[in-house]
């Protein structure tokens, strides 16, 4: 039955495309509204590599290429083309461009490329497109081949879809996949914890692009024709609907979405008879699009996680690792600096927002091994200063040095990698990762945390992972969150989330920690325990700079304490000393 073969092939093609999109959008959080152009690029490249020279068949088409290469070269070329095409787009998605702006840029690119290909005939034969594309291992088009070949092709397509599924699943289940999901949940935080966002997003675009290119190759080999009409930007919307309905981030969900929407929905409507001439002819196709729009809105409202939501990943530690004792002790500080040495210095730091001088010429020096406090009234610029030191924001003027190295222009993720890590004032846990995953993602070195490492498979990164889990478990136990270890961090209470954040920062084994109001919303007793833990860390050689409002905490744990007001450092010393200084008292009363 020819129709059956069509359905099988389209299921395979759409499943592969949706898996690619799910990887980009559901796992890595890159919204690629131009997704269809990668499929189109793959289709065109596969076509021109497989077609003979364009003088063939009477020369009725003009196109570049025409190399008449044997299978599997055209299909490999298609995947490569899809991946390469992704590279220029890193200009859009790599930088700190708002996700929705970048998405629009990709949508515009899809329209732009469609126009270009349509109008520039010598490239791919313009609006008529390329036709008579030979199918793999045959001389002519797919339709001319034997039935046994056709079934073989269809089954081969499904097998390829299964392989793509295994590929993306391997990628997602690895530490690299976890990093992608962390970036998706909160890219600013991932950046501050040492993840190179540009590289990660490029990787996601290239992977998704190559997968899309492969799907295009299969499709063009089957149809034998490819033209601009087949890849308008509306096709991307259909794929997005499929992934959203099926479940973004769940690869089985992506396949399910492919079966439901591009295949199921589109094909079922064909059975509704068009042969009734008394119906307005445009009615059914228009209603179809209305239905897609409704599906998008309804699902995003009522069930944004899709029919098959992303699975919660449970990490139980290997039994041998469970030891009583203080998890803190396992956090050997990486490179203890000599006590008394200066570890961090800021010289005349400035940050301007329009006309507002949030940080107005701050110079300070932090000594290694100290638990330094940073206080001041609201609007003094404490959080901004922390952002400058950590690299989250770029300074408008001044210099910063860390362990003698000038880091003023160093991006945040690099600072994290050399040992300078921060936490955030507002809740910034990775909501859709479990507590354990939050911690695991912060580990600075894990063999599985790269594309190659992920592809190598579990045997490659198992040891690093188990080691990390052991560390994380100890930390979780010592902070008393054992029973929440495998819950989504977003489901925890405010104080618990605060703890997750601190633990996560500790997992990076930093040399210096910048804490932004770590005790906010935390029970006083727990706050006390945290303070003790922090002091213990400092004794082991870590340096901590902590912004806090609670003067009692400052009293108990911090020495020295820096006071800020109006963007400038007012004074520095122990709390006792500061209480005697009139300008400090005044700043607090007035500010």
């Amino acid at each position, binding site marked *: 039955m020819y129709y059956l073969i069509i359905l099988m092939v389209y299921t395979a093609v759409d499943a592969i495309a949706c898996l690619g999109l799910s990887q980009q959008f559901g796992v890595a959080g890159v*919204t690629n509204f131009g997704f269809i152009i990668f499929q189109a690029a793959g289709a065109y490249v596969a076509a021109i590599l497989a077609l003979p020279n364009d003088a063939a068949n009477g020369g009725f088409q003009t196109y570049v290429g025409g190399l008449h290469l044997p299978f599997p070269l055209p299909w490999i070329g298609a995947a490569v083309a899809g991946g390469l095409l992704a590279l220029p787009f890193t200009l859009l998605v790599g930088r700190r461009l708002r996700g929705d*702006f970048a998405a629009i840029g990709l*949508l*515009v690119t899809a329209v732009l490329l469609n126009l*270009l290909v349509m109008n520039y005939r010598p490239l791919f034969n313009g609006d008529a497109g390329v036709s008579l594309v030979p199918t793999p291992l045959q001389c002519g088009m797919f339709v001319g081949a034997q039935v046994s070949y056709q079934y073989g092709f269809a089954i081969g397509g499904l097998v390829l879809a299964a392989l793509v599924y295994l590929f993306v699943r391997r990628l997602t289940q690895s530490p690299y996949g976890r990093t992608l999901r962390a970036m998706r949940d909160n890219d600013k935080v991932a950046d501050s914890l040492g993840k190179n966002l540009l590289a990660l997003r490029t990787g996601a675009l290239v992977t998704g692009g190559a997968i899309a290119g492969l799907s295009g190759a299969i499709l063009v080999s089957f149809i034998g024709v490819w033209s601009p009409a087949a890849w308008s930007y509306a096709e991307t919307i259909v794929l997005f609907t499929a992934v959203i309905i099926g479940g973004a981030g769940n690869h089985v969900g992506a396949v399910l979405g492919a079966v439901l929407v591009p295949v199921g929905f589109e094909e079922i409507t064909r059975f509704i008879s068009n042969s009734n001439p008394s119906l307005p002819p445009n009615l059914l196709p228009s209603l179809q699009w209305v239905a897609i729009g*409704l599906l998008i*809105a309804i699902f995003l*409202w009522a069930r944004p996680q899709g029919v098959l939501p992303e699975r919660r990943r449970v990490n139980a530690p290997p039994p041998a690792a469970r030891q009583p004792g203080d998890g803190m002790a396992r956090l050997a500080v990486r490179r203890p600096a000599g006590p008394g040495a200066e570890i961090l210095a800021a010289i005349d730091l400035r940050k301007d927002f329009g006309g507002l001088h949030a940080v107005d010429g701050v110079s300070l020096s932090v000594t290694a091994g100290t638990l330094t406090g940073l206080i001041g009234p609201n609007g003094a610029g404490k959080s901004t200063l922390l952002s400058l030191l950590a690299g989250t924001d770029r300074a408008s003027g001044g210099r910063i040095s860390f362990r003698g190295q000038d880091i003023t222009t160093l991006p945040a993720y690099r600072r994290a990698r050399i040992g300078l890590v921060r936490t955030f004032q507002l809740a910034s846990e990775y909501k859709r990762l479990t507590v354990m995953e939050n911690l695991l993602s912060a580990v600075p070195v894990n063999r599985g945390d790269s594309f190659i490492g992920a592809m190598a498979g579990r045997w490659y990164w198992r040891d690093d992972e188990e080691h990390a889990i052991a560390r994380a478990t100890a930390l979780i136990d010592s902070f008393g969150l054992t029973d929440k270890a495998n819950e989504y961090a977003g489901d925890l209470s405010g104080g618990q989330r605060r703890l997750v954040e601190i633990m996560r920062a500790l997992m990076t084994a930093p040399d210096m920690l910048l804490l932004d109001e770590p005790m906010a919303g935390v029970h006083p007793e727990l706050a006390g325990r945290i303070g003790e833990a922090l002091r213990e860390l400092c004794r082991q050689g870590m340096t901590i700079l902590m912004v806090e409002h609670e003067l009692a905490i400052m009293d108990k744990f911090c020495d020295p304490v820096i006071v800020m007001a109006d963007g400038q450092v007012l004074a520095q010393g122990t709390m006792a000393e500061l209480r005697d200084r009139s300008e400090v008292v005044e700043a607090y009363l007035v500010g």
Partner: protein
Amino acid sequence: MAAVGFGLITSAVLAIAAVGFTLQFAVTDVLNLAFAAVMTAGAFIAYTVNQAGASIWVAVIAGMAASSLISVALNYVVYSPFQRRGSAPITLVIVSLGMALIVEFTIAAIVGGIGVSYTMSQGSTIKVGGMVLTTVQLIIIAISVIVMAGVYALLRYTRLGKAMRATAANRMLARNCGIRATRVIAITWALTGALCGLAGTVFAIDVGSFDPSSTDIFLVLILAAVFLGGPGNAYGAMLGALVIGVTTEVSAAYIQPDYKYVVAFVILLAMLAVRPAGLLGAKA
């Protein structure tokens, strides 16, 4: 030189649309991709009124009212609830795409795919310094200029305008100053919705023959103008519209005319990649 004249018309229509779009974004933080579809709705309501015998200018008012209503409804029923829930901006964009589909294809289902035109005369042709324009085109340019002046006056001198600017800059802070953000937002949608309807009807008048899918490409031109000038900045949108309108027409005169939109899109992409804040910087 004639191309510059044509560019002015395109800019005039584009400016009305771009200002409406960018103000929606500025005050409510929603990139409303359904904007072009709502323009079409206004154009078709105007068509219905026009076919019932009313003059075209009365029909324009009807179109503005219709688009205004639809926009307010969109915000109340769809965008606001999602925002109250704390949805990410990208979710709002995807939802707005869904809304665009619903609006455009509901119109298509009712009207069919064929093109219609308003019943009106284009007036005589006038040559002005090398540019060739009809009376109606001059009226359109005049309307556009009046609207720009009106928007400027609104933002700068009226209380509502100041409230809009404040809400755009910092919603929480504005609320703390006693500005009722929800009310400002609702009024903004009503006003920008009217602008949307005006843009739609004027677009349809300019084009002559239009159908439900006529504004599809126009949306991308609006985005180009908005991002060129700086998203959220009303004056940036005006500047962007001028640049995009004139550049596309002038480039059509010198290179193949079927590439004229390519020029606009490349400008948009270049701005996004190099200077996302646009020519005129941060939000107005």
